[in-house]
């Protein structure tokens, strides 16, 4: 072979290597791009989700009010002349006065128009009027000018969620209502206020009157029961398994069982609650007590697993030192190990509670889906909880409930973020590296 052909071969080889290197680097870049795409997809979805919720839900915190002038005719409100609160509540026909005044003002003709007119105001309007008159009985006979809640449709219109350009048949607010609405707008009779009712009233069939407070209180009681049951039992189990349990078949079984329990679908816990707590022990349906018990069983594995991890992180030297100074094994745990592991255990507990707070499915099984208006007064009253209320609203067909649902989700997410942030803070603050 000649030198020339050698050098050609080497050059060929080099070219080949270079070519394959280029290919390999291209595939390297491609592979890397897949990773970036995957992460961007997840992040974008999160942003999209949160964005949808916020853009739908922020308006749930404001509410449209309308100012109406009502002539308080004696004949309708106090026909027998008595104006004490009780008689007014029983005999006063506030709805009729409202209708009369509104019909006179907007000059509606016929029953259909009257119905459309009244549909612009919340059914709570007459109640607002009633309360006003009871507070100021001396105004009977005169004309009062009061603010009342707008109906959900008008509320949506004010918030710009109803498209005026659609043909009349495919929108909930009719042309004549639009005319009246514009009239009121021109007279500055429309105002948007902070929706206090959302935070102090219970559920309602009318979107503009539906509040979240009942669900918040229900969740509070449920979480209270869950915490009272799951925390002591969870910590006790973790302590026993980590510090005292002999290594035998039985404790192995408990360990395997706890790991499996953590992965059992939540709805199965609901079936357990239904069959055992409701049907066998005959505990009340829809009660936070039962909900709390079911969620406690569900949260238990989380608390146990994190508790064991926290206990394991305490170095053996602490135990040996305490034992060496004459402490008993129980004293070692209660005086030294447990206090040192407590921040870790609490972090796990908060995370478990946050999961329980967002859990819906098992509570559907034990009847917490009922429509409940009253604010629950204790753990045995029928109630609903935050996520179930969200589910109920999400199932309601009215347009106004979409914003309520999203608003409720925002409240729930704020609770969850607060809980998780405090868990992170706790971990950061008390984390010790041994």
């Amino acid at each position, binding site marked *: 072979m000649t030198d020339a052909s050698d050098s050609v071969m080497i050059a060929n080889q080099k070219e080949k290597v270079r070519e394959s290197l280029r290919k390999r*680097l291209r595939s390297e870049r491609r*592979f890397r791009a897949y*990773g970036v795409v*995957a992460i961007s997809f997840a992040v974008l979805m999160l942003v999209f989700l949160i964005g949808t919720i916020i853009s739908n839900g922020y308006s749930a915190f404001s509410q449209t009010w309308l100012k109406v002038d009502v002539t308080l005719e004696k004949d309708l409100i106090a026909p027998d002349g008595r104006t004490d609160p009780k008689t007014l509540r029983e005999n006063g026909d506030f709805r009729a006065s409202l209708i009369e005044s509104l019909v006179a003002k907007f000059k509606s003709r016929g029953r259909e128009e009257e119905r459309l007119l009244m549909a612009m105001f919340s059914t709570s309007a007459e109640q607002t009027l009633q309360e006003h008159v009871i507070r100021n009985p001396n105004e009977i006979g005169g004309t009062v000018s009061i603010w009342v809640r707008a109906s959900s449709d008008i509320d949506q219109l004010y918030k710009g969620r109803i498209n005026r350009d659609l043909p009349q048949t495919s929108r909930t607010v009719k042309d004549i209502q639009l005319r009246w609405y514009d009239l009121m707008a021109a007279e500055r009779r429309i105002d948007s206020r902070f929706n206090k009712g959302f935070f102090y009233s219970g559920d309602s069939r009318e979107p503009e009157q539906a509040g979240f407070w009942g669900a918040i209180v229900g969740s509070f009681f449920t979480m209270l029961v869950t915490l009272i049951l799951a925390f002591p039992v969870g910590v*006790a189990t973790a302590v026993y398994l980590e510090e005292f349990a002999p290594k035998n078949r039985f404790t192995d079984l408990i360990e395997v069982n706890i790991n499996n329990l953590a992965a059992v679908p939540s709805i199965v816990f609901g079936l357990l609650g239904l069959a055992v707590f409701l049907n066998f022990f005959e505990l009340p349906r829809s009660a936070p007590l039962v909900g709390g018990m079911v969620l406690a069983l569900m949260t238990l594995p989380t608390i146990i697993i994190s508790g064991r991890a926290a206990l394991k992180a305490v170095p053996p030297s602490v135990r040996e030192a305490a034992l060496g100074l004459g402490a008993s094994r*129980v004293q070692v745990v209660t005086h030294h190990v447990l206090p040192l592991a407590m921040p870790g255990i609490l972090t796990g507990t908060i995370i478990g509670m946050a999961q329980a707070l967002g859990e819906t499915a098992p509570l559907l099984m034990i009847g917490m889906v009922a429509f409940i208006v009253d604010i629950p007064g204790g753990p045995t009253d029928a109630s609903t909880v935050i996520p179930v209320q969200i589910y109920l609203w999400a199932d309601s067909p009215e347009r106004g409930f979409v914003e309520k649902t999203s608003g409720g989700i925002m409240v729930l997410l704020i609770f969850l973020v607060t809980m998780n942030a405090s868990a992170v803070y706790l971990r950061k603050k008390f984390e010790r590296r041994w």
Partner: protein
Amino acid sequence: MSYGLILAVLLVLTVIGFYMGRSRARAVNASGLTRLHSLPSYYGAHVAIWIALPAFVLFLFWISFQNVIIDGIVWNGLPDRVVVLGEERTKSSVSAEQKQLLINNITNYATGDITIGAISDFVRRGAAHYQRLQELSTLIMVAVMAMLIAIGLLLTYRSISPSMRARNQVERVVLLLLMVASTIALLTTVGIVLSLLFEAFQFFAKISPIDFLFGLKWSPQTAIRSDQVGASGAFGAIPVFTGTMLITIIAMIVAVPVGLFAAIYLSEYASRRVRAAIKPVLEVLAGIPTVVYGFFAALTIAPVIRDAGNAIGLTVASESALAAGLIMGIMIIPFVSSLSDDVINAVPQSLRDGSLGLGATRSETIRQVILPAALPGIVGAVLLAVSRAIGETMIVVMAAGLSAKLTVNPLDAVTTVTVQIVTNLTGDPEFDSPKTLSAFALGLMLFLVTLCLNVIALRVVQKYREKYD
């Protein structure tokens, strides 16, 4: 007397007992003859335990079982002829479920809850009987509790002496309590298995298991009267199972590649800063309640998919399996990614170094060294994710359909096991109809399948960990 008050009194008595015991122990110490074996507070704790524990255990048992007993007595006290669902019958001819219905009506009447149907005279008398018994029962319970407290106090208080090893006694009880607590998790599993089996057996007594497991038609809506059309529902669960599988597969198609690539990128490529920024984002995705995903799927994603499908000429159901599966996949991404992240990080650094040292690029190292080494762990992670997807409820309840259609077309509406459990159990007063019981049969299937997946997955992950530890 309300149970809350009883417990509050018990708590106060316990605290008082503690202080009594402690001060007595201090007095013995102060007398100066001999020192006590343990610290005074252990004697206090000893007294407190024997006040609180027996009474509390009694209380728990009593309120757990009194209803069953009272119901029995009330039933026996009813007249021989009773009216059930508008028909008059003799007591012996009433079936178990009708008996339950009747008793529920009586107890609901007694506690002022909603009752069904007309209230006849015997219901009213039964309710009065029930109330009397309830009061009597509470009274007896309080009396027995008081007795137990007195005995406990007397015995432990008088036993305070230098030779009494209070600390050992207290510690023994503490250990016992810890042990009892650790069995609760076990009891939960036993409770789940027993309750599912019990109700499922009742279901299988009415519908043969063969029909259930291999039947092709599912329509659990049974008519109320036997002479109506469709009086017996169809309980062939195959369409429900295929629906579940379809949605699970769609979810996995989304979650596994995205989650896996996210994990690979984060553990092999990302800088520390990127990692610190992205990991919490994924954790947020994991922390969002499923009801929120369900709402998002139903409100936003399903219409988008339907409109997009219609635009290119496909017929898409408004509750398509695709929408539910897609969102479920997004929900599971963080689950897959964090598990695979752990698994990938557990692969020893020496394998990476070896491969890189031989001139492999990073992606070649990942594909040909790390992934094969991590494969068992990743399989375990995927199995856990599948079990998660099968058991997921709210997303499918809100975004998937109700009617069981035997199809594998992702654009159709299908139903799942969890959806059927929820719809068959919510808002239904009767308990022994096949429709309600079918939920427990489905629940049993769900539990068994997820349990198998979990056991296998945990085993695989464990084996894998041991390999590199």
